[in-house]
């Protein structure tokens, strides 16, 4: 969708970057598999994991806080919005998952490759990719069009 407001454009481009990164992650993890622990991280995977940590720290964490503290509140002032409770609940699920995954990836990048760490990066990475992309789907489909409508009318 084409947005006219800068705030919607910014949130949309955050979403685009996150979806791209998470789809790359999903693809990379699927190729390697949960049980075949790599001896060492390839440069591509290292870059991907570094990028993912950055995305989780900036896009997910700050993006979520910005939405909750500035946007959801404004929409909720206009009436009860069941969609926002879904989005908040998904934030509450994704945020701790992203934190745990960040810790596991940092251990991995620091040279701590073990089968347990790899398995947890795999499991949490796949879960994060699925939950966050599905969450973005809802925001792109429901929240951003609504936000643009409310702010421009």
């Amino acid at each position, binding site marked *: *969708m084409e947005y006219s407001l800068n705030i919607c454009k910014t949130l949309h481009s955050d979403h685009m970057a996150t979806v791209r990164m998470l789809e790359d992650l999903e693809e990379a993890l699927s190729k390697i598999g949960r049980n075949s622990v790599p001896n060492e991280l390839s440069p591509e995977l290292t870059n991907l994991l570094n990028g993912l940590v950055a995305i989780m720290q900036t896009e997910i964490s700050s993006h979520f806080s910005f939405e909750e503290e500035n946007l959801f509140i404004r929409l909720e002032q206009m009436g009860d919005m*069941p969609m926002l409770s879904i989005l908040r609940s998904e934030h509450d699920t994704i945020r701790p998952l992203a934190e745990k995954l960040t810790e596991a990836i940092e251990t991995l990048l620091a040279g701590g490759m073990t089968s347990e760490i790899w398995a947890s990066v795999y499991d949490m990475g796949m879960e994060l990719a699925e939950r966050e*992309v599905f969450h*973005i*789907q809802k925001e792109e489909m429901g929240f951003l*069009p609504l936000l643009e409508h409310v702010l421009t009318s």
Partner: protein
Amino acid sequence: MSDQGPELPNFQPEAFPGAILAGAQSRLIPYAIPLRFFVAASIFQIVAWGLVAYGHVDVSAFFGGYGVVLAALHALTLGVLAMTAMGASYQLLSVATGVVLKSLLLCRLSSWLYIPGTGLLVYAMFVGNTHVMLLGGVLVVAGLALFGMTIGNVFWHTQSLQATERHGWVALISMALLVVAGLSLIVDFNTGFLGVGLLPEHAKLALSHGLLGGYGFMGFLVMGFSYVLVPMFTLSPTPNPKLAGVALGINLAGLVLAIGGVLFGYTAAMIVAAVLGLAGASIYLHLMLKALRTGMKRRLGLSFVMVRASWGLFMASIVIGGLAALVPLDFNALPLFGFILIFGWLLTFLTGILQRILPFLATMHAHKLGRRAPRLSEMGHQNITLKMHALCHAVALALVSLGIVTGLDLLVLVGGGLGVVGAVAFLWFALGVSETVMTLYRTEEQSK
């Protein structure tokens, strides 16, 4: 509907199909309503493939008349395709358009009439009992009438999703003509009133009934829903509504011409209809493929492998339909046409989409209960069930098609058997997802 939540004033989700989610949770209907249709559809899918396997010696030579092949056809068309469309329409249309369903009792009543009616009709077609066939047919028609009233009311009041609404109206009109033709065909088995005076012959009306069901009722419904569901799953902009309207017009002209050609015996009209159908389908597919290209999501999973395959089968059905008009007896073109249209395009598309809708609905119900939503991929043992279904479905389609073309009944038997295995896997998936939601509701009940 009592569980409708508050809405923001003046918000019409017309700019983007996915804006439907703005009020999705508040417009969820009780899970038991769509669930009964989806589970029944999954069971009828097993029945349909089972009947194909059972009647393998009759499939490639089928040119009408009651018996196992007619029963298989209706187990699929009424039991799976229309059944799925009813369950999906009741839930998705109110969410997608923002129009509240007039009455949940009508939805429930339609299921009470339609599901046993379909069972009865399929059984009666199988055993050749025309009185029971008529009883089943009347129940089915009553169920469809309630469905038509319910979703017709949604289309009447909606101000959004024009492409879907227009396709919906054409589908409902086709459905009305379809049931008149269907009931006439059943009555004709006993009375032989068709073919007298201006009335069309039984075989010609039967073929027209098939075209109305395949391309008219189900085809237009599938295309109309595609304009909402495909952008929603791929995260792409709304397909151009003007082009969607052009595709609708061309496809409708093709359908009218095809039926006219069949009823009055004009082969040239049927060929022109096929050309129009190809043109209309090409525009529709252009819009769909553009949605895939421009969507934010690139990894669309197994469901969209099936959806893409179904689009290929849609085009193939029109080409084979054109050939069947020219040379109906060569390569058993007519039975092949029916098989590719119904088991190929429509079944492949609907099972591809249903495997996305079921987990999606489950998460919405989890949110409604204030529970942490289960992961989409963890529901219904997808790693086994959906992969097995897709594989068996693909091989079954190929084997039965080959069996029809070559007249090798053994291929139809094996294909039908594999279809049963795939359909069982799909039922396992549907029950698995349902179990997740039922557990959530049971836990909620116990915690009160």
